[in-house]
């Protein structure tokens, strides 16, 4: 997404639809920018960070994002709350803000 490219000053890093290409390029500042671009208007809260860090750690360990059931159970968050925290959903919300690349498959 062009606007985000300009803000981060890195054209190549964004895959498309503002998913990061390189998970290592991620930073707290970039997460905040991605959050604003993805319907999280009031900034990231402690609950957001719990999910974001969980999703990142899972990806760094297994090279794939976690199933939603793991996010809900391991972060101790209800499904409803997760939907409210990330209105764009697990992939276009949490994965994206956590700097994961866009997953493959019908998604």
């Amino acid at each position: 997404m062009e606007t985000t490219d300009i803000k981060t000053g890195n054209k190549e890093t964004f895959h498309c639809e503002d998913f990061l290409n390189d998970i290592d390029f991620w930073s707290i500042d970039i997460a905040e920018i991605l959050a604003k671009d993805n319907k999280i208007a009031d900034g990231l809260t402690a609950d957001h960070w719990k999910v974001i860090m969980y999703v990142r750690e899972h990806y760094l360990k297994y090279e794939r994002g976690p199933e939603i059931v793991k996010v809900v159970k391991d972060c101790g968050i209800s499904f409803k709350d997760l939907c409210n925290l990330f209105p764009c959903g697990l992939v276009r919300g949490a994965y994206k803000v956590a700097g994961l690349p866009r997953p493959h498959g019908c998604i």
Partner: protein
Amino acid sequence: MNTEKNKRSYKAQKVIDRMGQKLTRQMVGSLTACVHCGMCTDSCHYVLANPGDPTFAPAYKADKIRKLFKQHYDWTGKVFPKWVKAGSVYTDEELQELKDIVFGKCTNCRRCTVNCPMGVDLATFNRMARGLLCHVGIMPEGVEYVAKEQWEIGNQMGVLKEDYIETVEWQEEELQSEMEDPTAKIPIDKPDSNIVYVINPREIKHDPRSILDAAKIFYAAGEDYTMPSEGWDMTNFGLFNGDDELGGAVAGRVYDKVEELRGKKLVISECGHGYRSTRCEGPNWAKKDITFDAESSVITMLEYIKQGKIKVDKTKNPGSYTFHDSCNNARSCGLTEEPRELLSLVVEDFREMYPNRAENYCCTGGGGAMSMAEYRPSRLKSAKIKADQLAATGTKTVVTSCHNCVDGLTDLIGHYKLGMDVTQLVNLVANALVIDDIVEENKKKYAEKEEVSSGSAQ
């Protein structure tokens, strides 16, 4: 020694050789029938979004495959090679160029097919060409990744069996709490059930609301159903990468499980390519006669309403809705009227999108395009046609019976800033269910039971 062969790269030669094994009579018919009248040109969303670029025209793309057929497998190419534009491939670079056409410039949507007076089915031989390239390892990285997951792990998102079961059990708990019924079940591997319900892994991995919604509908209808612990992925990347063996293996797993469970009917959740692969193409790929019925969940839900098994109230879904036909459902399987009938029963304000049914435009994410990151900019450019079509309806929400279309549409709605929502029929039917009385009754019943058991414990 064959000098012609030696001029060719190993992969190029394998592609030519394999083509001979893959040509069916239907394909040969399509490969020879084109009279280059150009009537299909404007039916393709890529052409409409790229006016003036002839390389997007269906007949141009088809000629890139056709020339190989003419050169190697058709007598006209042997007698008048120049006249019939016969040609071959020699290098791996040429194969890469072919890949960019067959994967990157066509979603196999078949809109050109329904607009061709000669019945040329480009999508069918485009799929064959994809298969030839995959056979020599030339394909988009995402397609390779997903095909591998589906072959090796058994579903396209690499979900492990224990995670699948844990997710279904989690949705069962949600069902129990919403229905106020601690005995409500989403049965797994229940033998002799009326229905075996299979889904898209996206529902397990990322968004299980559609599983819960389907479970609510089955619950309200009092259906005797089960979800299988294996063979539950009804999607099929074999349709997208042209690999009939993958197609047969994936569909075969679903069929084998239904047979093992002695299920009477296979119900396929809302997914265009999954429905086409599992119901229509799969038996061919798997070389298997299936002994049970198979239907889309759209038909199941519609029948429940018609037979009075569930009650719905359309005022529970306020707002305006339009319907997007998935290419595979509408053009390849003729599933056009039932979704409309169902939608009209569960929303008050349904407005058609034009053109529609078999003439509808692709969401631009079809044919596996959602997994081909390298072509995404061109895909989103071609999505302008769909975006204009959506915007013209003036509706707030687009409904579709396809998981892949949900994501394709979500992407383009974001890209063109249309501000629309995307949903599926299962969500709207579940939301429209009139079940308050059942829930109230359950509440009383289980509260009484609780009292009795706590009373007797004292």
